């Protein structure tokens, strides 16, 4: 067969077509396909019955159809069936759910799985999280509903700011961002994502977990944590921590690798008892002698439980680290480990789907 670049890209590329592909490629769809629950395939019908059987079946179907039509036509029309989804209420401006603008006669709508809620510079909205919480959506925000199951509610915040107040069991409500997954552990928090995909989470009640590829941070009330695309969550800190400590932490988490030791010196020097939160998170993030220095400073501020040894912590023994975390009194880590196991099973289940 003759080679034809336009048809199947075979043969010598046509410069004009190649140029058009390059110019128009920017409009190509690059997002991931939406996730939906598994659908059980309809069993195939086997046409092995006798002709008489199908004649009787056709008669029965006709009778049933007449009955249904008669029933429907003699009763008042019930109207359009309500759309399944989370309730969305307009707070200001004209937020948009899918392609429907809220405002004027339409003050409320439904956010269904796969749909997007978008606000412009003047708009705000409130989303009811399936009776287990509420999310306020601030201006210039784009939010998608990924999953709404009895024990799993999942949003994606592409950009903008949300304020979440959740009373669901720990781990049931999660928010995907371009640089980390925020896991509610029974709390209220604010989550912001800028146009580059970088995020900032600030907890006001309870605590929140932040995670990307096994890199995790726990953010209790009064603390905050930044996250960056390709890196994941940084080290959490209390918002009343010394300014110098916070600046050094940003440099340590997201700055050039060469200056980490100097930044660590500053953090250890500035750390207060309350900043044990930060030091505990630093243990797996630094190595060698730096880790030993973090251990010493943390042990001086909050002595480890008797079952915890220095050797074990330097080896990053998970059980010992968890015991020490619980002693900080910032949240029960067993809740997080339970969530991790169920999340992992859920993800593996997704991957095994046909």
């Amino acid at each position, binding site marked *: 067969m003759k080679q034809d670049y*336009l*048809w*199947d*890209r075979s043969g010598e590329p046509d410069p*004009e*077509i190649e140029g*058009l*592909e390059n*110019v*128009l*490629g*920017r*409009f*190509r*769809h690059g*997002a991931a*396909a*939406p996730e*939906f629950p598994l*659908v059980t*395939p*309809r069993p195939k019908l086997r046409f092995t019955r006798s002709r008489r059987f199908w004649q009787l079946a056709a008669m029965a179907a006709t009778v049933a159809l007449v009955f249904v039509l008669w029933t429907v036509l003699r009763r008042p029309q019930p109207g359009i069936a309500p759309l399944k989804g989370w309730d969305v209420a307009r707070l200001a401006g*004209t937020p*948009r759910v*899918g*392609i429907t*603008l809220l405002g004027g006669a339409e003050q409320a709508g439904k956010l*269904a*799985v*796969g*749909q*997007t809620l*978008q*606000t*412009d*510079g*003047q*708009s705000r909205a409130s989303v009811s999280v399936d009776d287990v919480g509420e999310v306020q959506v601030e201006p*210039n925000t784009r939010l*998608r509903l990924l999953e709404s199951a009895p024990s799993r509610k999942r949003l994606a915040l592409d950009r903008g700011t949300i304020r979440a107040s959740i009373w669901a069991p720990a781990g049931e409500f999660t928010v995907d961002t371009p640089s980390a997954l925020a896991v509610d552990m029974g709390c209220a928090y604010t989550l912001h994502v800028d146009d580059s995909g970088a995020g900032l989470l600030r907890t006001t009640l309870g605590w929140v977990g932040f995670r990307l590829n096994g890199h995790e941070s726990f953010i209790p009330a009064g603390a905050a944590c930044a996250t960056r695309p390709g890196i994941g969550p940084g080290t959490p800190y209390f918002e009343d921590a010394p300014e110098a400590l916070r600046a050094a932490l940003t440099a340590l988490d997201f700055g050039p690798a060469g200056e980490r030791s100097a930044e660590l010196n500053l953090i250890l020097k500035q750390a207060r008892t309350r900043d044990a939160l930060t030091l505990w998170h630093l243990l797996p993030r630094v190595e060698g002698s730096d880790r030993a220095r973090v251990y010493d400073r943390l042990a001086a501020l909050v002595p480890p439980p008797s079952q915890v040894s220095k050797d074990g912590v330097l080896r990053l023994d998970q059980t010992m680290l968890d015991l020490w975390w619980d002693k900080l009194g910032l949240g029960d880590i067993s809740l997080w480990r339970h969530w991790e196991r169920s999340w992992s099973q859920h993800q593996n289940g997704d991957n095994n789907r046909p």
Partner: protein
Amino acid sequence: MVHGILLARVPLVEVDDLVQDVFLRAFTRIRSLRDEASFGGWLASITRNRANDYHRSPREVPEALETDVEDARADSSQIEAEAILALIRSLPEAYRETLILRLVEGMTGPEIAARTGLTPGSVRVNLHRGMQQLRKKLGDREALRPQVDQQETG
């Protein structure tokens, strides 16, 4: 495929949301699909119907979205790309859909045929005739350019 079919029919700023909407509709109606082999054509039909519904219902575009589009237009290569896309969208429906799937979404002719349920022969004809018409429109546009430049500088 869904993205490409919508791009051929609705404003650029609406495409992403409508893609989500099409998959939502497909999900809720998946049990009506009797033959798995015709999934592509079935999904393509839902997509075309969704685009038709879009044009039937009145709406307004949020201010912020228009601003986004204007910002994007500050880039000259973006202006060129949008102009070419507009030319493709002015072609007859069969040609513009096939050309967008080929030139924007990067699918080959056999892939377009397999996914949309069209015959390879139809896709091939649509591609070549559509490209022929697009070349003519691009040529007409180039021919007009010196006159426009002259008027602007004069």
